[in-house]
């Protein structure tokens, strides 16, 4: 009888557990569906930003240009200047929209980790950045970087943004030196990648603002830019479960360091932990 009762009890427990599991699974499905809807909304939002905002901007750029060309001769001197300012404004806004979309795209790009060599990516980027080096003396000191498990498409974007920044903020230097190297993190031996320049640097008291969207530490007249580049870098690093940080001193250059997480095993954990940013 006792044995019989025990079986009933354990059967009841089993049923209970199955019920709870089913309930939990149902909840997961429900939440996933909600997340999917939210994601789709975000996607369609960035789609309309791309399509709907760019169109009227093109019209402003186009018609102001036509106005300048066809009726410029009859305009008072100041009017032509205002037209130029309109043109400059539309170009800036076009860049902003494109970079915001790029940032959004990084968000929904699924991480495609694979072993990658970084030196070829950097060599390629140096070629691409050549127009920005014209008429300047730029020395790239690129160390032999260790192979790493990462999404090469996204990591390329990290280096592109950091290298373009380094070039931009060294413009006043007679000789520009940009160093790209890797060291090992003490705690876990992870590679830390560094892009260091001898440019105008920044005051460490503003270091927290560096990675925020639209945050800029310099006047637009001195250095062009949208304030989205470093936010994109941070987003990509976080996606990898890594960290990014910066060091700088005014007029003494800046250094940007980042890690890319520890590969497949630890990815899930670190992804969640760093998501708050």
């Amino acid at each position, binding site marked *: 009888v006792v044995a019989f009762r025990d079986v009933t009890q354990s059967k009841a427990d089993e049923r209970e557990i199955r019920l709870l599991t089913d309930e939990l699974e149902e909840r997961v499905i429900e939440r996933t569906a909600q997340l999917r809807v939210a994601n789709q909304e975000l996607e369609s939002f960035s789609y309309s930003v791309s399509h709907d905002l760019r169109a009227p901007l093109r019209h402003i*750029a186009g018609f102001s240009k036509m106005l300048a060309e066809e009726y410029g001769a009859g305009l008072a001197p100041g009017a032509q200047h205002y037209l130029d300012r309109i043109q400059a404004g539309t170009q800036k806004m*076009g860049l902003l929209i494109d970079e915001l979309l790029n940032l959004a795209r990084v968000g929904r790009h699924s991480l495609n980790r694979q072993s990658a060599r970084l030196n070829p990516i950097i060599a390629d980027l140096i070629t691409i950045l050549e127009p920005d080096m014209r008429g300047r003396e730029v020395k790239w000191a690129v160390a032999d970087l260790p192979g790493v498990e990462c999404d090469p498409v996204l990591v390329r974007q990290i280096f592109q943004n950091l290298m373009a920044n380094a070039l931009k903020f060294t413009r006043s230097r007679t000789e520009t030196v940009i160093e790209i190297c890797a060291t090992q993190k003490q705690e876990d031996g992870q590679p830390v990648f560094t892009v260091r320049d001898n440019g105008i640097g920044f005051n460490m008291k503003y270091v927290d603002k560096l990675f925020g969207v639209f945050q800029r530490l310099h006047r637009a007249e001195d250095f062009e830019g949208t304030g989205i580049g470093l936010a994109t870098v941070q987003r990509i690093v976080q996606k990898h479960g890594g960290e990014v940080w910066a060091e700088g001193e005014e007029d003494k250059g800046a250094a940007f360091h980042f890690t890319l997480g520890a590969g497949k095993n630890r990815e899930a954990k670190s992804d969640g932990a760093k998501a708050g940013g």
Partner: protein
Amino acid sequence: MMNTPELDILLVEDNQDDMDLALHALQRGQIANRIFVVRDGEEALDFLFCRGKYAERSFDHPPKLVLLDLKLPKVDGMEVLKQLKADDRTKTIPIVILTSSKEERDLVAGYNLGANSFIQKPVDFDQFRETVKQVGLYWLVINQPPVIDDRKRLAGASHGDK
């Protein structure tokens, strides 16, 4: 070539501003003289399938190039593209998607449906004009389209000798 009402470009564009800018760019580029504009997807299909108010048109005189916007009233650009590329009578007409968007899914969908090119309209007007000029130059001057008889033969799917 032939003494027929030949058309260089069919511009499918619903937005008046975009239409004016594109026409300006095409005329400035001095490549296309005969441009016809339709203002939504349905009208584009009627025009190219020679039906409705375009019933008197003939399949023998297709435009040399269709510039197709994606966001269109009634029938959207992708659907227009799909129908044109699915029909033997229209599938050889070059179709260039000219749009504000460069969304990956549009790109993939467009090429999968057989678009001949996909071009994002640049915000900068000089670049836009240059782009339109290059597109016109390529499709109207450099590219060699099939002549009508061959087009029919292709459509008939019988590959006899010429």
